[in-house]
């Protein structure tokens, strides 16, 4: 008798998984870099190309690294959230202008506002590859020791900022 129930049992297991699958996003790929040291780079700055921007400068601080581009529509979506977060002074957001035209990036920031103290330029997308970026915007939370603690794939929204980013930053600050 039990062997006749086998197909039904297998099917039930599959259906449960398919049900869970409906709530998952197959396109979101968790980063293996979380918990590892943020890859080093040294890129020219957007507004002052003679100067370089490097994570080494940020040692001892908790900060966000936000990959964005003027051509990216998700970046426009999350931009007001970044502006609010920058205004609140909770955590500094550093930008990385990913595969973009310098003048267009500057126009974009002057038009919509600039939440970043410093913006690095990653015109060849190399830094992006080292950080495992596969679609902008992506945002990394990096702690005082320079370790990546969290990665946001896709636009940040105010809920994520309030419920995840700010508590995490506070916790990291306290360490």
């Amino acid at each position: 008798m039990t062997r006749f129930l086998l197909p039904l049992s297998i099917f039930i297991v599959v259906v449960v998984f398919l049900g869970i699958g409906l709530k998952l996003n197959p396109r979101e790929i968790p980063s293996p870099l979380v918990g590892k040291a943020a890859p080093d780079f040294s890129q020219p700055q957007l507004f002052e190309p003679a100067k370089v921007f490097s994570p080494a400068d940020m040692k001892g601080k908790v900060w966000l690294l936000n990959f964005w581009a003027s051509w990216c529509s998700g970046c426009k979506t999350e931009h007001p959230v970044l502006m609010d977060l920058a205004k609140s002074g909770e955590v500094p957001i550093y930008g990385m202008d990913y595969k973009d035209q310098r003048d267009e990036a500057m126009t974009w920031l002057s038009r919509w506002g600039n939440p970043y103290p410093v913006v690095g330029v990653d015109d060849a997308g190399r830094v992006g590859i080292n950080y495992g970026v596969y679609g902008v915007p992506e945002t990394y939370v990096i702690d005082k020791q320079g370790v990546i603690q969290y990665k946001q794939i896709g636009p940040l929204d105010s809920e994520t900022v309030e419920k995840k980013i700010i508590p995490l930053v506070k916790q990291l600050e306290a360490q």
Partner: protein
Amino acid sequence: MIPEIGHFALILALCVAVVQGILPIYGAAVGNSSLMAVAKPAARGQFLLVATAFGCLAYAFAEKDFSVLYVAATSNSQLPLHYRLAAIWGAHEGSLLLWTFILTLWMFAVTLFSAHLPESTRSRILGVMGLVSIGFLLFMLTVSNPFERLIPAAAEGRDLNPLLQDPGMVIHPPMLYMGYVGFSVAFAFAIAALLGGNLDAAWARWSRPWTTVAWCFLTVGIAMGSGWAYYELGWGGWWFWDPVENASFMPWLAGTALVHSLAVTDKRGGFKVWTVLLAIMAFSLSLLGTFLVRSGVLTSVHAFATDPKRGMFILAFLAIVIGGSLALYAWRAPRVGLGGSFVAMSREGMLLANNVLLVAAMGSVLLGTLYPLFLDALDLGKISVGPPYFDTVFVPLMAPAIFLMGIGPLAQWKKASLPDLAKRLKWAFGVSVVTAIALPIVMGNWTPLLSLGILLAIWIVTTSVVSLRERLTHVAGNSFFERLASVPRSYWGMLVAHCGIAVFIVGVTMVKGFETEKDVRMNVGETATIGDYLFRFDGAQDVVGPNYTAARGSFAVSRDGRETTVLYPEKRRYTAQNQVMTEAAIDPGLLRDLYVSLGEPLDNGAWSVRLYHKPFIDWIWGGCFIMALGGVLAISDRRYRIAWRRQEPAVAEPTRAARRKVA
């Protein structure tokens, strides 16, 4: 007005489906003939109603009625009429209507060709199909209405995805759906038999032609999809083990197993329980395919735009239909009889061993397709399962299956002798092995896989020859042709289908072993050599199509100084969505395809160009068509034709009923 008629027809169809799903099954259970009699007119009525809805949607597309949301989303005023009509199934809602339409078409076919079935069986079959249809109609009417209005109407449609603007789109989805949905008939037969408790050999005999027809459609449908991907995607590949492709391949594997297992049940009356399970499986996998394509749980090149609400609906529908059938199976199957005896070393045994391999192959495709989902759901990380996995797993599973395919037709029913088989097959085996070793060496590229492919293909052909020769010595008739003519068509069908597999294997093996490709930058007038062919690039010109602009390259192809053909690959830009498409140019041939696709324009009129020489690639699809042809031959066999033609009274005479039991 017309779209509302279509919408209303769907609502009426749903009402009819409810009646059709309940009354005849109840009538069959209590033996009420007037309730059972509802099935036939209800099925025909439902067919007419859904056909009306389908016609209304087609009319909306033909008339460019952009006040219908679906029409505005998937077509455009510049889109040619045949693509506007194909756009009916260009996205989720319309393709669902096509599904339902084909389901009712199969129902209609059942009403036409079921005069010889006992009334209770026929009522149950149509009732089960009606129940399936309820799900689809409800789905359309609740969350995927193709007739939803767009107010105010759009001035212009958003156009059909340029990838779909291809003759393949006109014919591939209907063929594929005919296959998917066709398995619903075998499924309904199985459920009806479980409900009625009369799972006899007659049931297998009735199911066989229906299953074979559906299998033929599915085979052709998949082959056309593969061919379409080959020339449309511009990468020269023909199978990508994409989840959606797998979703069509799984029912095919289950269906192939079913076709063979039905043979055992028909012949020996045995393994009914297993055959019923396969019938349920084949259709369940078709349903699973629609879920995978429409729910967004897996990423695929071919998936429809997705919506979790829809995913939830189909999942619930799947759970009810498949879960219900499997529960019924678990309840009823233990009481089914065993059937006639045979030993493991017999044709039955081999057919079943082949079944095990086919189902294991199907299980592997399912495992590989869903495994990323399993891991993700358990939060164990994200992985990708792609062609390297399937290739690695599939070859060792299919090789023994194909080896058995050669022996099976030669083995006696009930009990075969191994030494006898070995004696009869030694020539076939010798020829296969020698060819498999020698041929690749002669062609100058020996790899184990190449040898294996040739071995299997030659094995199928040589064993078929042995089988045919033995068969001819046993049949009546004086002259050779007389004897040829007296071999039953079902036997020819099997032989042809098996040889189709051989042709397919030759194609796959030769392409894998000997294809060459070149990425070159070509200035105007420059040449490139690939295979024995010389390609001269004569520049690219701008051309204007009905809804696109394109750069069209011109390549003069010659061999030994003689011009073979001129190829015109295009790089198209579709205006409505501003999307760029690579339209490869192919010179097909029996022994090789020449394939050119344009990359990017470089300076001075030069282009980056990709050239392929693909030996025997058309054999891949040719093999599939030959398989389907085998199926067609099999169902044209005398015994099925007779079964269909005979118009019996609804309540069979006792003698005939008795005769049917043994058939």
